[in-house]
């Protein structure tokens, strides 16, 4: 008699199931627009040339060992990662009130931040503090915060399906009506899944309300550099909030912009009011880390730290990032052009207006179902496509498939 008899099979994560179904599909023209990683025009994974270079440097460096990193991670990594988010000359860094916690990718950074907030924010162990996530948001956001113990994870309006853009009025209203001290999870750039970001002016409006209503800003920054090709531009929102004096967290991932997916490189940047607050916060985060992964893996952090702190390598990396961003931009403009040339019903401006890896096509669930089943083009039920799944070879087929779908299915 097993004590685990009642354990049910967990529901599969939608995007993993999509990939599994894609793999099973034998159709010669199949296209995977649900893939979660960058692909080249040959539809292959891409290890950044600068990463290969640094991997060799590390593997041949006999001065390096495999001893435990400090609990909070590799110091050079934490410092350079926070610097890339906040800027070389960030006042917060100069005032010594920034700290970093090396984490297991963006997910790990979010989890550490969430675990800390649950214990120490808005009272002690206040699990009832509302956590606001955008509607829609990355499917894992909700679960990370509820597994950290928060009982009230709610949506804030974000995507306007009708106008295919930001639901600004709704967003601002939800901010106004949020209980004081609520936590708002903000996408720093390249919103997942909509690809729609607030403009600088809109961010200013968001920040104004958040300051007035004492709302806590928790940024998720998974695409810095990858979104526009410009590191500074993609960090504008975070830096603006810092300039306004906010305390904030920023969960950074280097999975996409360094292509280091399986090395699990992330950093939780903590911007505090002063250095005393920063060190107390970090000391508590250290305790939390000790009970999850104890200390983080070194390989990815070394690659990032070496790259960010060596001028030639840094230049090469920016170039590699631009290569990826440019390919995505090209696919966007070509997809839009092809749909317009085909006369596909509807407007397709949003494809080039949106930014980053993802596009919210606006296709409804029936249309999505048709695309998958009849045309073997795989995308999320929400209509989200990953631009990296498009290539010059499959663009025509995808455009034609979308055209057929939209004309046949309403």
């Amino acid at each position, binding site marked *: 008699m097993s004590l685990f008899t009642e354990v049910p099979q967990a529901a599969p994560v939608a995007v993993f199931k999509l990939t599994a179904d894609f793999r099973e599909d034998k159709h010669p023209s199949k296209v995977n627009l649900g893939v979660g990683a960058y692909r080249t025009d040959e539809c292959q994974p891409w290890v950044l040339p600068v990463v290969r270079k640094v991997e060799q440097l590390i593997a041949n460096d006999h001065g390096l060992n495999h001893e435990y990193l400090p609990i909070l991670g590799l110091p050079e990594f934490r410092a350079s990662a926070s610097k890339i988010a906040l800027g070389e000359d960030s006042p917060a860094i100069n005032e010594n009130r920034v700290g970093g916690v090396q984490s297991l990718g963006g997910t790990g950074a979010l989890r550490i931040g969430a675990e800390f907030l649950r214990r120490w924010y808005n009272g002690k162990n206040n699990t009832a503090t509302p956590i606001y996530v955008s509607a829609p948001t990355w499917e894992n956001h909700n679960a990370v915060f509820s597994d950290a113990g928060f009982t009230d994870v709610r949506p804030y309006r974000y995507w306007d399906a009708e106008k295919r853009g930001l639901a600004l009025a709704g967003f601002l209203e939800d901010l106004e009506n949020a209980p004081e001290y609520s936590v708002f999870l903000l996408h720093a750039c390249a919103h997942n899944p909509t690809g729609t970001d607030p403009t600088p002016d809109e961010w200013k409006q968001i920040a104004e309300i958040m300051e007035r209503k004492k709302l806590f800003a928790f940024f998720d920054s998974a695409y810095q550099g990858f979104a526009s090709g410009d590191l500074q531009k993609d960090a504008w929102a975070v830096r603006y909030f810092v300039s306004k004096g906010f*305390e904030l967290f920023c969960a950074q991932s280097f999975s996409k912009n360094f292509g280091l997916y399986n090395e699990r490189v992330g950093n939780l940047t903590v911007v505090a009011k002063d250095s005393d607050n920063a060190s107390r916060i970090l000391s508590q985060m250290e305790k939390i880390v000790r009970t999850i992964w104890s200390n983080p893996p070194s390989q990815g952090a070394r690659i990032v730290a070496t790259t960010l702190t060596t001028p030639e390598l840094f230049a090469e990396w920016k170039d590699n990032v631009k290569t990826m961003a440019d390919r995505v931009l090209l696919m966007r403009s070509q997809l839009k052009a092809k749909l317009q040339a085909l006369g596909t019903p509807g407007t397709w401006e949003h494809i080039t207006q949106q930014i980053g890896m993802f596009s919210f096509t606006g296709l409804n669930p029936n249309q999505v179902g048709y695309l998958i089943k009849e045309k073997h083009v795989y995308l999320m039920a929400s209509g989200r496509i990953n631009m990296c799944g498009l290539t010059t070879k499959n663009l025509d087929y995808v455009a034609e498939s979308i055209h057929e779908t939209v004309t046949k299915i309403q």
Partner: protein
Amino acid sequence: MAALSSFADTPTAQPSEEDRLSLAFLKDRSTEKALLWCTEYLNEEGHGSLLPMTRKVMLQIYSDPTLTLDYLPTLGLPEFTRSATELALGRDSPAIRENRAGGVQTLGGTGAIRLGAELLQRWYNVGGARCGPVYLSSPSGGSVAATLQGAGISDIRSYRYWDPDKKGFSVAPLLEDLEVAPEQSVIVLYASAHCPTGAEPSQSDWKQIAEVMMRRRLFPFFLLPSQGLCWGDPAQDAWSLRYFVSLGFELLCAQSFSTNFGLYSDRVGSLLLVLKHSSLLLAVQSQAASVVHTLWSRPPGGGARLVTMVLNNPALLAEWKEGLRVMVERGMLIREKLKERLRMLGIPEFWDHVTQQRGLYCCTGLTEEQVQFLVMTCHVYLPASGCVNVTAISGRTLDHVAESIYLAVTSDLQEYRH
């Protein structure tokens, strides 16, 4: 912007005993000082030992032009978890043949303990009574309790393990404690190389432990932190685990590859699940994936690749096993030398326990006052439990350590009594 921080009331976390010791040791200006606590296997130079093959295999892995850095599956590299499971249970284990044993790749041993704890907390006996207490040995390794608490397990108790009179493991008090533990309690057991004492149950002790646990329906959560570094033979180090599996127990086992592969900063571990049926294994693994999804999402690739390569390549495997033997021999030699030095200094008691214990750790049997004396007067740093990592004693520090222990045992420590 408000002047007051949202975190004004967040206190500074108390440093762990381990951190306090390290800090005090670093600050100590004495030329004759020693830090005797560490969780790595240290070489003569006091650094975490790198296995001879590690550099060349890592170079091979990272020079492979076909290597991609795509995400690993949530449950980890399948070849790695298969190899880790076979290493723990033996390739011909019936549990493996029956498809009811499998692993989940984790962030070292801590990640495996955390994952196991989360599974127990959420799913153990979900249809019946809530998960009851979890029992740890007394004393227990540093962060195990905190890791369990991190998963929401609050009822943590201890069973007697170290016998201060015998200066070793005693089975009778442990069995007594198991007899009165509530049914279905979880019992955390070191399969071998107990941390922090180095004291081991004998095979006949294990048989008695298993009998009580079977009868009282107690759930084993094994820890296998350094397989191969206890007896120098991975199979022997897993004897207790395999014995329990042969009796039909369901169990969890947190495996770490930090110490036995010298891959500390690579964070390689596996949570072994042994269930009654393969369908149960699949269900529990799917729940493990849900837990992993919000903890670290996917595990890291490099270290797991190295371990997989070594375990599946006969030449590398032989080299690894030889490396383990060398490490164990060195550990035993340090123990012998320490005992011999103490004997020659004329220490009044027998110190046989030092050479009877195995693995990295040694419980000296020193009292708290004697430990205080060592720390405050002799610049020898060790935790209050009196347990040390024998590899932290180098040729250079051996004499000073031995002399300090001798002084601690023979001096009048009136002033150190509370």
